[in-house]
Structure formats: structure tokens, C-alpha cells
């Protein structure tokens, strides 16, 4: 074996017995994360809270909602501002507390339990032109109702009903993940 082999970390592969081998013997590795969608994940146990008809100025009303929820020591995720209100996710076991406080404060709201987050993982997705649009286009093509959608640099998150999560995840696996990767 070539003396250089002792320095090689496992996933960085080459023809160890032939350091002067042609470049063609070099095998692609997972050295940097692969472009595009790499993994689909489903997280369950959420409730979607949608508060609407907040009087202008909307931000003042939104802050009242957020303050009321925070006073119940409820942590929220996935906050989105809507034209006349806001929506966010809470853990399903805290949905009752949120409902109680919003009712007491007189807000117009809907709490939808049984929600899942489908996460589409893709490295540097904001730098991959058109990728986010393709993902959104794919989910719309499933005819599943998407409560909300959010993006980060390495994943897109979609809130759907628990019953639809598996269908959406499967469509993503079929449409967006290359066959050579584990679906």
C-alpha cells in the first residue's frame, strides 16, 4: 500500500495502491454536501395558529398576540406575518393554552391541530437558482393544502395536515431526490 494512504480519511477515496493512477480512477465522494435536495424529514405534533382581522396598525395587534402567548410561556415557531394578522406553530400540547389566552383577549383566530412539518433539506438552497421554486411547485402539484411555508439556507419547511405529510414527503422523494441517493 502506498504510504500516503495512512493520511487519507475514509470518505476521501482514491486508488490507494496506485498513487500515480489516472484521474479516471478517482471516485466521487460525499466530501462536500451534494447539491440539490438530499433528505426529506417529517416532524409531527404541531398546531397551526392563524390570527386574522387584526385592526390597523397591524403590528400593534400582532405584538399583543405575541405578548399574550409569551406570557403563557409558550414557545412558537414558524412565525409568518399575513396581511391582516399572523400565523405560527406551537407544540400540540400547548395549543389549549394558546386558545384560552387568545379567546380571553378577543382575537379572531383558528387553531388547527394535527399538523406536521415536512422538511426538505438541500445545502445552500438559496444559492441554487430556482430550487426553492421547484420544491414549492412540486408540493402544489400534490393538491395537498399547505398551511404555511418557510425557508432557511439549508431547508424548506411546509406545514401540512398529519394525514397528508406522508404523501407530500413521498412525492418529494420521488421528484427531487436523485435515485442514487437513499430515498
Amino acid at each position, binding site marked *: 500500500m502506498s504510504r500516503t494512504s495512512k493520511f487519507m480519511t475514509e470518505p476521501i477515496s482514491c486508488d490507494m495502491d496506485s498513487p500515480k493512477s489516472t484521474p479516471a480512477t478517482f471516485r466521487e465522494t460525499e466530501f*462536500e454536501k451534494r447539491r440539490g435536495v438530499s433528505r426529506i424529514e417529517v416532524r409531527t405534533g404541531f398546531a397551526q395558529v392563524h390570527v386574522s382581522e387584526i385592526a390597523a396598525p397591524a403590528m400593534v395587534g400582532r405584538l399583543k398576540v405575541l405578548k399574550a402567548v409569551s406570557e403563557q410561556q409558550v414557545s412558537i415557531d414558524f412565525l409568518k406575518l399575513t396581511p391582516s394578522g399572523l400565523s405560527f406553530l406551537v407544540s400540540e400540547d400547548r395549543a389549549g393554552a394558546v386558545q384560552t389566552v387568545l379567546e380571553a383577549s378577543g382575537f379572531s383566530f383558528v387553531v388547527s391541530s394535527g399538523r406536521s412539518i415536512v422538511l426538505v433539506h438541500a445545502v445552500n438552497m438559496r444559492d441554487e437558482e430556482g430550487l426553492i421554486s421547484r420544491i*414549492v411547485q412540486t408540493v402544489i402539484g400534490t393538491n395537498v393544502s399547505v398551511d404555511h411555508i418557510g425557508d432557511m439556507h439549508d431547508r424548506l419547511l411546509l406545514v401540512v395536515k398529519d394525514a397528508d405529510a406522508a404523501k407530500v414527503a413521498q412525492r418529494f422523494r420521488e421528484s427531487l431526490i436523485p435515485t442514487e441517493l437513499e430515498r
Partner: protein
Amino acid sequence: MNIKVMKFGGTSVATPEARMTSALRVISAKEQGFQPVVVVSAIGRRGAPYATDTLINVLKEIDPSVEPDARELDLMIACGEIMSAVIFAHTLKTLGHSAQAFRGGQAGIRTDGVYGNARIVGIHPVSLFNSIEKGAIPVVCGFQGVYVSGDGAPGGELTTLGRGGSDTSGAAIGAALKATAVEIFTDVDGVKTADPDAVPNASTLRKVTYDEVAEIAHLGAKVVHPRAAEIAMQYDIPLWVKNTFSDDEGTEIVKREKHPGRRATGVTHTGKLVYLQFDLSSAGTETERTELEARIYETMARYEINLFMLNLSPNSTGFAVPRAQYSTVADVLDGLVIPLKGKVFLFQIGRNASREVETQATLLESLGDVRRVVAELTEGCTMVSLVGHEFMQTPGLFFDVLSTLNDAQISVLQTSDSDFSLSVLIPESESNRAVRLLHDRFKLSLVS
């Protein structure tokens, strides 16, 4: 072999004095018993004679209407690092130390072949080991590698690694050589809690996790590229960010388990964005609304538009796009006509209809039920983000961020959040003020 990879950024190799300071750091590492392997960026930052953007402009100025080929562009801009590596190696020689310069391909860096934005698929560092064995200090060009096609075409195609490429080269070479450490040298003391231009009293973080630094970097901090952090994390290589020009200890990037604890880590800002919020209330049914959404996103995908801060609500959808891509978005969406089951939907960007939209509306009048889909347009936006470690689940965090900005009359157009960050879309003119306010609100000048 106690290898230390030392990567020097543009300012660290910009002048003879800077190169001498950097070279002395390399020699010092060697005298401490390390085997240094150097990775260099091109000389100087934007505007410098051999900086990447200058080399690009040399081609573009020939005829601005003709876009250079990506392949030729890569060959051109790779010259910046080649010059830098040769000059740095020669500087080491003048100080009495044997050194050898290597192009990325000569150092064994193989890529996936995407010009201008290649990713490293493997490293075959035989020539680096041979150089070390001969007692030399290898000096490798950052930001580049070669793509070798399946038939093993001789030489391979030179490809550059895109943004953060030299940091990525440094971390990848560190992984391939099983380095003791990778040190990223720059002109600031380490990873800061905010951009010092916005917050002069921003602290230098002494320890951050790979996750934190990747998040900070993705969201605008320029001190180390997330691709480098991701490689270092994957291969468990100690990664440091240090200042070439000071003796500050710098920032150590560590595993999550070694983190000092729950905290807000920093505030960043990034992006020149345009925000579009589509009012879909003219859709009469859920099916029509879904169809309109589908057409919007299908169009964005077809024209390869990058989207940020997406949102969907019962009667609207919205997103931000990079300002550089906005003219394409306006071209394809303003005046777009979508017929749906006896109705015609006409897209309008902005509250005031363009001449094209008015012309379309006149032409479509005879078709009957014409409905407008108006996208409210906010130009001149940017994204400000609070990054934290085990911090985003804090009850009341959204209230604290939004009320801090609201109290200062800074309007927030949209938000997005992750396990490590909370971002707000605000007017770009308020960017520095928002960063300062959040930095103060979360007492980040006390973080270390």
C-alpha cells in the same frame, strides 16, 4: 505528521508587508513543530489589481454586451490565486524556507465540474505529501480545483469553487491531510457578534459551534464561509479564525457538545432584496387559488429565480427575490395572463398598473370576467437575523425582536426562523440601526 493548514485571505496577502507578516506566521508555526500547508486567496479585495472582480472586469470590459463563457471566466479568475500562491511561496523562499506553489488541480482537488460554483468531490493529495517529504512548505491556490471526466481526459477542466471557495479549499485540504488544525487568517480578530461597521463595540466570540458559525455565515457574516465550517464539522477538524495582523487568540469553532451554553450569538444582515406579496383574493375558489400559486412558482422555477422569506396564507402568497433578479421577475409576471375556467387572471406588479398591464386589460375586456392579481411591491429590503445556540425556543423571543424594531419605527415586512436563527425582512436603509438595536437588546457586547 503534525500538519497545520493556514489559509490567508485577500487582505493577508495584499501587500508585501502583509505577505511578510503572513509568511512569518507560517515560519513560526514550523518552528513550533507543525508542518504548515498554506492556502491563499487572490491578492487584495474588490478593486485591487489582481483581485477576482478586477480579473472578471478585464474580460467584461472588452464588450459589456457579450457575457464571457463560464469556462473562460474560471480560467481567468483562477489566475489571481495562482499569482498569489507563487508570490507567497517565493516570499517564504526569500526567508530561507523551501516552498512549492500548487494549483488546486496539482494539489489533487477534484470537483463536480460546475464552472464558477464547483463543489469538491474528493482530494488526492499525493503531490502535497511529496512536497512535505522533500522538506518544502506547500502553498496551494484556494478557490479552485479540476474536474476530470469519466474518460480521464488529461489535465482536467479547471473549475472555481464559487463564494467562500478559498475557505472551503483550506478546510478540505485540512480534512484530506488529517490536519491538527485549520486556521483561517483574515483582517478581523475572529467571529464577531455583529459587523463592526454597524456595531463598533461588537465582541469577538471565543468559542462558537460549527452550527452557529455556519448559520452566521449563511446569514451574512463574511468571516468564514459555511462550506468550510461544514467540512470541518464533518471531519472533526479544529477550525480557528484569526487575525493576521494581531496577536488576538481568535475564535475557535467547536462541536456542539463543547459549547459554553444557551445564548444569543450574534446579529447579521445580508441581501439586497425585493419583496412581493400577491393578493389572491380575486380567485373565486380554492382550486383557482392553488392554480394561480402553482403558476407563480412554476414561472419562478422556469426562470431560475432564487426565493427568500416565502409565505402562504389563505388569500395571499409572497416572497423576496434578489434585486439582481427582480427585472426578470417583473418581465415575466407583470402582464402575465392566466385563463382559468371561464375567467382570466391578469397579473400586475405594484399598485400602479404598468402600460403593458393596462394594454393587456383593454385587449382582454371582450373576454368577459377579467380579474387582477396584484402583487404589492417593496423594493430596497434586506434581511437582519438574530443567531443563537439553543435560544430560538425562548418564549417571547419573537415579541422581543418585533417590539424592539417596532418601538424604533422600523417596519418588518416578513419573518422566518430556524433552529438557530430568527430573520426579519426590513427596509435596507434601516439595516445598521436594526442590527445595533438587536445587538443592544440581547446584550451581545457581553457575549464572548
